[in-house]
């Protein structure tokens, strides 16, 4: 008791999320929807694959009769050399046909499966691109990734083999039974006794085995989560001298994983022997009953031999049907997750009569209310006007509504009530793509895509020449540090890489925005500390960037705020004050106190 208590305690050191739901009940509607992805191939790949499979199956069915009944009974036993020659040649011919059809079968079936998965994944990815911010806010990046990559892959087998095998294996099974019955009905009935057992092993036992492997995989992924985390946090662990404690945790986790694995291994090792014993029972029936029938003259040796071949063939389709059954159950879980995403509608939809106008940059908020969820309102009836070419600083604490205003201007969300207007047009009447291509947003945590610096800046305007990219970098003061990198503009960078410092990333995103040349610029200033030298460059760059456009800055630095044409002071979703620095200082209100508090800090 005490030991399990201690073990539990150790295992509570870390917590990792664990998947639970494994498979879903069969759902026809969903299946039908999944199968609709086969439609584009219903006139070419699908029938072709089916055709080759039929040929392979047919040859496989025919051979035991040829070899058993004709070759043995007619040619060998009756010593008919001429018939033997003919039959051997026929067998060789059939094998050649099998070779051809198998080559094509593998090629076409794989093609079918890959094309369908390709289409499905493309459909899913393209759909996800259209979804709104809210969709991404509610989910972790990892969970979206798993659906686009892993859930689609898990359907691959179903489409490559599953659907076609389902059809052919039924036919094969019926074919075998039909042939056996026509050869010898009594013996067929006797042997069919083993069929239910085979079905049981193939579906039920296999399902149990699969479940226990899933358990292993779940434990394994927990183990891997911990490994990954312990590697990333190794410096913390060593600083806090927790190596021993972590070792103990890992040993327990490893042991837990081992126990689950052991269980799976045990079940797994039973599968083969079970099949073997069932087949053996079938063989015994064949030997016993068959030899009795031969004795009575109700069966020939050739039939007996054919039966022994067909008996071996029984297992194959049944096994595959069990496999398809399991694939379907797994496919249900995956397809449900995929369809959940596909059914997700973009919250911010393009209106059919959307106008494509070139905007000049005037922004009006008329009594705008907004809430991310029912519980809390992010904006309470805010109204203001930003004139063309003006720089506006948004000031306020976290949660005051600064980011919400920025999000509404680029229409990542629609206002709950009230109206957002651009150049006097309600924002919903403008083409979404057209709108966003004229607005640039520079986020605090600039995302760097893997690729060269050149490509990263060009992301703002894919049509820009190398020269234009370099000019943009020069304009924001990024050229100098880029030149100092190993391969200058062709240096490979990535999100998690440490080639660029925070300040340098910011400059890259400035260059990106400048290259996009937007009418409206939204900028979320960084709070993370940047060394003073880079900071000066950034301040300078900002001036270049703001020139000649409407700008909304979520500002943290007083120097930026002071130079703004207009300052909006926000608090809990309300616009408290507006005016320029001097006006607001003179007023002696919220802004005045905010500024004073910040300087008090410097003088601390």
């Amino acid at each position, binding site marked *: 008791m005490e030991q399990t208590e201690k073990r539990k305690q150790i295992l*509570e050191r870390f917590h*990792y*999320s664990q998947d639970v739901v494994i498979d879903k009940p069969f759902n026809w509607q969903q299946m039908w929807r999944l199968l609709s992805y086969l439609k584009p191939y219903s006139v070419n790949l699908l029938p072709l694959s089916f055709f080759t499979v039929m040929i392979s199956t047919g040859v496989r069915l025919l051979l035991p009769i040829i070899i058993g009944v004709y*070759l*043995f009974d007619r*040619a060998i036993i009756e010593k008919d*050399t001429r018939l033997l*020659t003919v*039959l051997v040649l026929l067998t060789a011919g059939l*094998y050649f046909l*099998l*070779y051809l059809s198998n080559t094509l079968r*593998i*090629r076409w079936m794989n093609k079918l499966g*890959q094309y369908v*998965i390709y289409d499905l994944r*493309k459909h899913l*990815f*393209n759909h996800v*691109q259209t979804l709104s*911010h809210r969709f*991404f806010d509610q989910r972790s990046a990892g969970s979206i*990734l798993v659906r686009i*990559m892993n859930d689609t892959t898990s359907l691959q087998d179903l489409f490559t083999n599953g659907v076609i095998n389902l059809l052919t294996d039924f036919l094969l099974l019926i074919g075998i039974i039909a042939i056996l019955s026509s050869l010898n009905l009594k013996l067929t009935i006797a042997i069919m006794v083993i069929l239910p057992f085979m079905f049981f092993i193939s579906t039920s036992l296999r399902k149990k085995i699969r479940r226990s492997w899933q358990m292993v995989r779940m434990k394994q992924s927990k183990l*891997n*989560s911990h*490994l990954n985390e312990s590697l990333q946090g*190794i410096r*913390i662990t*060593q*600083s*806090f*001298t*927790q*190596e021993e404690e972590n070792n103990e945790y890992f040993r327990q986790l*490893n042991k837990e994983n*081992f126990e689950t694995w052991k269980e799976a*291994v045990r079940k*797994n*090792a039973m599968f*083969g022997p*079970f099949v073997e014993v069932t087949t*053996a029972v079938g063989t*015994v029936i064949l*030997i016993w009953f068959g030899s009795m029938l031969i*004795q009575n003259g109700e069966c020939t040796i050739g039939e007996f031999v054919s039966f022994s071949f067909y008996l071996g063939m029984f297992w194959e389709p049944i096994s595959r049907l069990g496999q398809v059954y399991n694939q379907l159950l797994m496919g249900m879980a995956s397809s449900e997750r995929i369809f959940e995403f596909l059914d997700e509608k973009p919250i911010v939809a393009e209106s059919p009569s959307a106008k494509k106008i070139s905007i000049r940059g005037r922004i009006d908020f008329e009594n705008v209310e907004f809430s991310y969820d029912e519980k809390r309102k992010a904006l309470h009836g805010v109204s203001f006007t930003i004139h063309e070419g003006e720089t506006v600083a948004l000031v306020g*604490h976290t949660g005051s509504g600064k980011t919400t205003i920025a999000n509404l201007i680029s229409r990542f969300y629609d206002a709950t009530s009230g109206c957002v207007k651009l150049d006097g047009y309600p924002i919903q009447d403008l083409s979404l793509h057209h709108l*966003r291509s004229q607005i640039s947003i520079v*986020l605090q945590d600039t*995302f760097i895509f893997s690729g060269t610096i050149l490509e990263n800046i060009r*992301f703002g305007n894919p049509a820009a020449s190398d020269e234009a990219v370099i000019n943009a970098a020069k304009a924001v003061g990024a050229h100098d540090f880029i030149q100092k990198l190993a391969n200058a503009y062709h240096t490979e960078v990535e*999100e998690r890489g440490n080639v660029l410092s925070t300040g340098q990333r910011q400059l890259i995103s400035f260059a990106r925005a400048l290259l996009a040349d937007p009418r409206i610029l939204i900028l979320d200033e960084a*709070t993370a*500390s940047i*060394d003073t030298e880079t900071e000066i460059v950034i301040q300078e760059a900002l001036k270049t960037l703001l020139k000649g456009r409407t700008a909304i800055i979520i500002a943290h630095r*007083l*120097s930026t705020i002071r130079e703004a044409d207009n300052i909006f002071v926000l608090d809990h979703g309300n616009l408290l004050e507006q005016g320029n620095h001097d006006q607001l200082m003179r007023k002696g209100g919220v802004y005045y106190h905010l500024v004073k508090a*910040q300087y008090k*800090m*410097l003088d601390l």
Partner: protein
Amino acid sequence: MFVFKKLKDVYLPYKKDFILSLLFLLLLTGITVVYPMILQLTIDEVVLGGKYHLVPWISAGFLAIMFLKALSAFIQHYLADMFGIKTVRRLRDQLYEKLQRLPFSYYDNAKTGDLMSRLTADVEGIRMFVAFGFTEVLRFIVMVTSSFCVMLYYSVQLTFVTIAALPFLAIVTYKFDKRVHPAFRGVRISFAKLNTKVQENISGIHTVKALSKEGMEIERFTEKNEKLKAAHLRTAGVWSKYFPLMESIGNICVVALLAFGGFMVTNGKLEPGELVAFYSLIWYMMGPIMQLGFTINMFSQAKASGERLLEILEAEETIRNEETIAKVESIKGDVEFKNVTFFYRSEKTPALNNISFTAFPGKTIGLIGATGSGKTSITQLISRFYDVTEGEIFIDGRPIRQFDLKVLRSHVGVVPQESFLFSSTIRANIAYGRPDAAMEEIIDAAKRAQAHDFIMELPEKYDTILGERGLGLSGGQKQRIAIARAICKNPSILILDDATSAVDMETEFQIQQALKEVMRGRTTFIIAHRISSIKHADEILVLENGKIIERGKHHELIQRNGAYKRIFDIQYKDRDIVLEQAAGRC
């Protein structure tokens, strides 16, 4: 085999499982070869010979043998698997323990992704080989020779006619394996590339949408998706070319068997039952031959995996307790650097160049300078995460190498630049350095770090579980928990490496206030970019390219009119104007 010899410590303790599994494998193979012989007996003796009274005996014997076969198959399979997973368990424990001990310098040059793939894929490679590789080789030998012997026993002539095509099978199989593995690797690489693309797209979706570049992203995705499809189809191409060919060679053997065997039976040189037995035996030989390529490949992969794992297991632990360590249990907090020069491995310029300073117990040292000037290196040497290249560090007057690492580090509290939190409760995260800390101590630490209030607003309060990488909290909140974690250790030396970078100015102000009290009685090192964070330090060191270029108290450095003053001017340039304005108003 050298690799496996070196790794023997991992699997030898379980050799009993292995040996037993081999014994059952022999039994299993023996029985398998008996099966066609029974079939032959049935046909030739019972059916053709008319000895029908033998039927019950043959049936019963057959059933008994098949049960025995099933049982030994189960035991063999189970034991082989157990041998594999026991080995994996031990291997993982050893790897994990080793990784916990390896020094920072090892991790500077290692990528998490690479280590992870060793810990997963390479460990799996070893398991596969240990569980199946060894036995597969033996199975091959036993199966092929015993089938061959039985065939020879029936008919020498027919045996050679039948197996004439087998060498071709071996060649085709070999070629197939050589081509199919690169193809599979191609699929894996394409998959990884597509995966990276999608991951990047989702992580950067706000940037994509902000710049309205969904179309471009779809293009890039489609290109990689096409490549994955092509890679899959290439693999299918290899399969479709070789697999039917391999099957056909087997079928050629069958046709040869039927033609030649058929004539032999008609000439009375062979019994019909023997022909049927041959028909089964030939597949017993072909199966393992088709497997052989797979086995060889498994071996070479396991060897490569073993090498990569040994690289970890044999990596040098450069930072270790010295032979003789002083029996010191507590540390007062006196830190002295004497002409310290330090190089990171693989770098040519020194990270620290002839640094000397003394921090007396309870005093505060401020470190300021551009990124890469050596601030963090100084603090990492104090915890002895690295050893100095030249010079010496003294703690409480004693060379740092004379301390027990655990004692030393448990007296140094570090708040790192990037606040890494573990997937655990907030309580456990704060108590990470002292798992036995009482709840009151944890709450006290959180209060001092200005974290208590926001923790109490969370649904589960101190029992809130932080997601992987501490998602769900803002940067400032994470930093405050990291500060509480360091305080909870009650260290005599406190290191704040840009600890308040992600909080807004107001919160920073509160944390600074709180830290003032926390710092009392501890030697504190503060790394910062903002002058306001370090201006009250007892000594400020201004670093540039690993050298101390200025040192002194705030007002001394201001008077000196050097680098420090320049930073000060930039940060404070508009303060005076604003304050004047403000003063004028009220």
